[in-house]
């Protein structure tokens, strides 16, 4: 039996496969198609203080090897989330990581964190400071000082594991990664979507209502692997790698680049059972290569060419 367990801050995971925020709903949507009990952790759709109705339609568009979305963080708000969604999610016996975002920084981040801090069923908190679809001029995750200040403030409000989700839409991800680490983040999740745009040439209009959205899927995987590798060389806290993971093979790239855990995102839409399959796939890979545990692979990239 290969050891797939990892630690993210104070959170022990039985395996390192999670699902990315916004791509797994609140888990019940996958009933009969994926057993969430097999996953290392579930990350919720991002929650805000007040309910958000989200952005106008069209919100999604397929692109070469990917898709663009601009959902705009549609969610029922923290009260309804705690009343209706969380009780169902905790039934799977898997840690639930709650993703949060704020419409008023940093007060709402603090308010949300304080509420979640008191709830046992919340295993960890993910700070979504990198959503590209909130109509903000600049994301917190695009500025090292803003990132440090936000993380530092939230850190004071909770003893739970704090994960900071980073944006790839920056010139140097390591500066933001270091800022989050030094401000007290327990782990980093990277990457959020890459900003992109698609145009209908006949109509000369953008194909999604907000014009610009977030690109995800295999198209962004090489960007994500590169950023995990860059961050791994600079920071000491665990990295949760994501961006276009479609199967075991692509998940392994992230571990080798330095990720302690991975999240499956867009692939959940196409193969709803894929995250659970990757858990078995990783175990199989370790067995075949006579490795005792996943930790032996993390950051195991060899230098240069063979």
């Amino acid at each position, binding site marked *: 039996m290969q050891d797939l367990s990892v630690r993210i801050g104070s959170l022990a995971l039985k395996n390192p496969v999670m699902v990315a925020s*916004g*791509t*797994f*709903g609140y888990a019940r*949507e*996958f*009933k*009969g*198609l994926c057993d969430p009990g097999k996953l290392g952790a579930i990350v919720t*759709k991002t929650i805000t203080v007040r309910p958000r*109705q*989200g952005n106008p*339609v*069209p*919100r*999604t*568009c*397929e692109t*070469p*090897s*990917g*898709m663009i*979305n601009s*959902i705009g963080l*549609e969610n029922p708000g923290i009260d309804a989330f705690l009343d209706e969604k969380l009780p169902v999610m905790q039934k799977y016996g898997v840690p639930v990581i709650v993703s949060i975002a704020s419409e008023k920084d940093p007060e709402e981040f603090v308010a949300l964190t304080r509420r979640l801090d008191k709830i046992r069923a919340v295993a960890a908190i993910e700070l979504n400071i990198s959503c590209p679809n909130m109509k903000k001029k600049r994301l917190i995750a695009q500025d090292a000082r803003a990132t440090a200040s936000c993380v530092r403030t939230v850190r004071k409000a909770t003893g739970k594991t704090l994960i900071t989700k980073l944006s790839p839409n920056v010139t140097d991800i390591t500066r933001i990664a270091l800022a989050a680490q030094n401000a007290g983040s327990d782990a980093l999740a990277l990457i959020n979507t890459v900003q992109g745009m698609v145009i209908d040439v006949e109509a000369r209009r953008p194909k999604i209502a907000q014009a610009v959205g977030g690109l995800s*899927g*295999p198209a962004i995987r090489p960007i994500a692997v590169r950023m995990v590798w860059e961050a791994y060389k600079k920071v000491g806290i665990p990295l949760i790698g994501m961006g276009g993971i479609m199967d075991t093979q692509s998940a392994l790239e992230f571990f080798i680049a330095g990720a302690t855990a991975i999240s499956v995102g*867009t692939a*959940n*839409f*196409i193969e*709803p*059972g894929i995250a659970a399959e990757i858990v078995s796939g990783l175990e199989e890979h370790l067995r075949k290569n006579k490795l005792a545990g996943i930790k032996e692979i993390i950051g195991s990239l060899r230098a240069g060419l063979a």
Partner: protein
Amino acid sequence: MSALQTDATIKANGRVAHRFSRIVLEAPELSRTARPGNFVMVKVPDAAGALLRRPLSIHKAEAGRGRIELLYEIVGPGTCALSRKKAGESINVIGPLGNGFDFHSQQRDALNILVAGGIGVAPLVFLAQRLKKGKMLALIGARTAAHILCAADFRKLGCAVRIATDDGSAGLRGRVTDLLVDVLMRREKDFCPVLYGCGPKPMLEAIARVCRENRMQAQVSLEAHMACGIGACLGCVVQTTRGYERVCKEGPVFRIDDLVW
């Protein structure tokens, strides 16, 4: 009833009209659980540029033979790749998905009017298979005579059929809603019209107008681009009087007066 994921063997796959194809799948469980208005998410085979599954309405279901049929328009690389799949091969489908039509309270004196635009005939043939009470009338709208789908299927199921084409090459020259207005004007008063529709948005909007003017109710099935089809991504929402709702989950069938145009 929850959706299931299955590899379905293709029994037949071929062109039925201009750019429209029909695929017959061996899917015993789906054939039993599917209801009119449900759809499936079809995984597109190895097609470059087609990452996501394609949502396709269930066109027919025969529980006895364990088969379902899907009718689709070849519009892009995904459906083009699908059209090249051969009998004997298999495709992966997830379903049945969505809410389906609500037709259980129908009366014996109902005049069931099925209004279809283009590929919108697909779920309405399945509905006609299952409607047991009242009379049935199918109104089919298409660009030209070559684009008309399923007129024979409807007739075989006991439906009267009327046709409208944009260019007048078959039936009435005009819109399918022109036919609808005509039917409502001439209808026998002892039959109560019940409307079901599926087609492009301008057609549904026109139906909504006719319904308002005649104080009638209708159920319409919406088409939408979908990423997941199971209610997770929130990509396919539509504006309703209750706020945004997911076409894939709360729909695809909506009461027409709940939709905000």
